[in-house]
């Protein structure tokens, strides 16, 4: 029909204007090639431990195929409250402070939509997980990215926070252990962030999906800082430490008012998380300590190996103390991170993700995931070494 708008023009402006994820662009390039060794994968290479899969299979056998309460199964919420209390010393009421979500992804979306009005500012730190900025924009909020610095190991500092805050700041979005840098915060650093949030009366959204995966020091959660429980939405899930990405299981812990607000959106948009995944998650929490520990130990050895290999190549890395990523500084080779990743793929069939996919300050860095088998990591590191020799 003449005069009608193109489909593209009818797409909501916010959606139209947000660029595609850099990860997806790179994925498209990589997927045209065969026999790539990928260090670009942000999920565990382990399959979900068998007894967790079995718990879901048994639930299916029993015919558990219905909706659950919007909040999620109460028994799962109880297990989660106990798990969080054990780790952080902070108690949440399973009845009205724990909400089961479809991955941390949904938890993030709920929290931001529940709190943000058009124009409200959300402070977060880059390099960051790719969803933060778009989720804020979808809610008509204003993402304010702090460019953390490599000199500080990409750890957030109080000064950077002070420089980012304005009267419109409403939320601070935190992610340590960090994807993509592998950085963690010490207890003192967490306390400094907390003091800042309290002073400026901000609500904190803390994405602690990698909290089990720290290799040098135990993770210290911001909810444990006095005065933070009442202003924090704690986000966690089963994807990483339990190797359950495909189950789409996450949860939020937050004071009743905030939980109720998120629950309203969840109820009308998602209704509830899948029941079989919830059953599996119960098993994961009740029985799974040793599996998490076993996988963590394996990650640690691979991390040690990758760090030592980069050291041999004289390529500095951000100290990889958490998650399963090494963020390696390839700026010495005088090409952009993107070009480095493309050339490495072309020359050696090894895929890494350019740091710029996670924010501008990721320039000069590549993210190498060690959630892949040791044998593959070993070959990949040999190839990277050969490639970088050819560059210098």
């Amino acid at each position, binding site marked *: 029909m003449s005069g009608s708008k193109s489909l593209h023009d009818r797409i909501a402006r916010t959606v139209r204007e947000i660029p595609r994820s850099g990860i997806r662009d790179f994925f498209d390039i990589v997927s045209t090639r065969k026999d790539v060794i990928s260090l670009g994968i942000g999920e565990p290479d382990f399959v979900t431990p068998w007894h967790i899969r079995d718990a879901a299979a048994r639930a299916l056998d029993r015919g558990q195929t219905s909706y659950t309460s919007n909040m999620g199964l109460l028994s799962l919420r109880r297990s989660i409250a106990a798990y969080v209390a054990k780790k952080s010393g902070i108690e949440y009421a399973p009845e009205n402070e724990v909400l089961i979500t479809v991955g941390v992804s949904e938890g993030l979306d709920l929290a931001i939509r529940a709190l943000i009005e058009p124009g409200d500012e959300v402070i977060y730190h880059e390099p960051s997980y790719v969803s933060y900025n778009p989720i804020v924009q979808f809610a008509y909020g204003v993402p304010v990215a702090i460019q953390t610095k490599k000199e500080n190991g990409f750890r957030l500092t109080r000064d950077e926070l002070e420089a980012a805050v304005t009267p419109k700041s409403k939320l601070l979005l935190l992610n340590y252990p960090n*994807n993509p840098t592998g950085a963690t915060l010490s207890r003192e650093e967490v306390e400094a962030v907390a003091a800042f949030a309290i002073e400026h009366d901000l609500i904190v959204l803390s994405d602690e999906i990698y909290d089990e995966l720290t290799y040098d020091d135990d993770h210290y959660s911001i909810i444990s800082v006095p005065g933070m429980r009442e202003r924090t939405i704690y986000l966690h899930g089963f994807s990483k430490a339990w190797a359950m990405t495909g189950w789409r299981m996450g949860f939020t812990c937050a004071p009743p008012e905030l939980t109720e607000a998120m629950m309203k959106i969840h109820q009308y948009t998602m209704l509830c998380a899948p029941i079989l995944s919830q059953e599996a998650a119960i098993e994961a929490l009740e029985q799974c300590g040793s599996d998490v520990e076993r996988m963590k130990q394996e990650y640690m050895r691979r991390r040690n190996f990758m760090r030592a290999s980069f050291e041999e190549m004289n390529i500095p890395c951000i100290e990889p103390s958490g998650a399963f990523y090494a963020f390696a500084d390839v700026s010495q080779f005088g090409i952009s991170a993107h070009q480095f990743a493309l050339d490495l793929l072309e020359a050696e069939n090894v895929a890494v993700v350019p740091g710029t996919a996670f924010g501008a300050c990721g320039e000069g860095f590549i993210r190498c995931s060690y959630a892949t088998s040791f044998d593959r990591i070993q070959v990949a590191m040999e190839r990277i070494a050969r490639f970088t020799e050819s560059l210098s």
Partner: protein
Amino acid sequence: MNELLELVRKNGRETSENLAKMLGISEEEVMNQLEALEADGIIRAYQAVVNEEKLDHSLVTTVIEVKVTPESEGGFDRIAQRISRYAEVESLFLMSGTFDLLVFIKGRTMHEAAQFVSEKLATMAGVTSTATHFMMKTYKLNGIEMQSGEDDERLQISP
């Protein structure tokens, strides 16, 4: 020491360079620890885990439960040693329960295995009875899954 042992248990051919990198210690330290483990008789050998079913002439594994009369001196040890000297015997364990020794033997055919039991084992002084089982299929051996391949079906790049 234990972590190193765990790694070589999984892969006896892992290079000391890789072991050193994984454990965050020097290569020299790895060598020293391995030598000590060998000298102490803790590490007895490094072997390959073989999927027999893939071989043209695969070996048959037979498991035999053996009841014996323990000797007044030395108990089960002497007879166990005598049995273990046969080259066919791959593994031999003293067990609690309804029988005493569990013997694993490898042979070219079931017939060969049966012959070993009837001619060499059952006739041995002290052996009072045997029960022979042929192994049909190996699903997992020394911690290694024998039937499944290693497929990685994840997306090649993900956030």
